[in-house]
């Protein structure tokens, strides 16, 4: 069974440019998460979806970050415009339902220069 798939794996952009990350969760998983991992830190939740509904986006900086999960499967996380401090790993994860085990993708590594 395929795991959580993310792309791109690595991205280098100049500040003020936009960037988007894509995530395909494990088949049949209704809950999808985006986590932010800064260097040397543990991941922190940005947003959680149950099907296509964002049920927890309290930690998402909405002035520059946006996310969507159309049709309740794939998801896209966008940053516009990117700032130097956005350099981090963006991890997508999924679970069958909330409260079940969460499985992570390999992450999208962003460097803003």
């Amino acid at each position, binding site marked *: 069974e395929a795991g*959580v798939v*993310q792309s791109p794996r690595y991205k280098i952009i100049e500040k003020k440019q936009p960037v988007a990350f894509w995530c395909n969760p494990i088949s049949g998983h209704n*809950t999808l*998460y985006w986590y932010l991992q800064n260097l*040397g*830190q*543990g*991941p*922190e*939740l940005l947003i*959680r979806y149950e099907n296509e509904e964002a049920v*927890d986006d309290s930690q998402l900086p909405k002035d520059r970050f946006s996310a969507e999960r159309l049709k309740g499967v794939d998801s896209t996380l966008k940053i516009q415009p990117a700032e130097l401090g956005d350099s981090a790993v963006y*991890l997508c*994860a999924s*679970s069958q*339902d*909330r*409260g*079940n*085990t*969460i*499985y*992570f*993708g*390999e*992450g999208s*590594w962003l460097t803003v220069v």
Partner: protein
Amino acid sequence: AQSVTQPDIHITVSEGASLELRCNYSYGATPYLFWYVQSPGQGLQLLLKYFSGDTLVQGIKGFEAEFKRSQSSFNLRKPSVHWSDAAEYFCAVGDNTGKLIFGQGTTLQVKP
């Protein structure tokens, strides 16, 4: 407030030696507890989890962890470390909402 503390930022052990990574949590109810491992340039892989029941949990790669409610701890152990175990280890606490709170991680270095 909910939180997870991993007191050891960096640990070095010799190959073949035993390992214990510490994790303490602060949580208002009975937590769900997890240990994840992250190799350089990779995502997080689940080692083991505790939801309820037996407080000694077996995981993959020969790891185990013990939930001690009285000490608010969920320490990870392995009897004999292999060089391939060198990685970053994260303890996390969650509940039935699906949100995980992670510790800062412990970097494990294995000496030959």
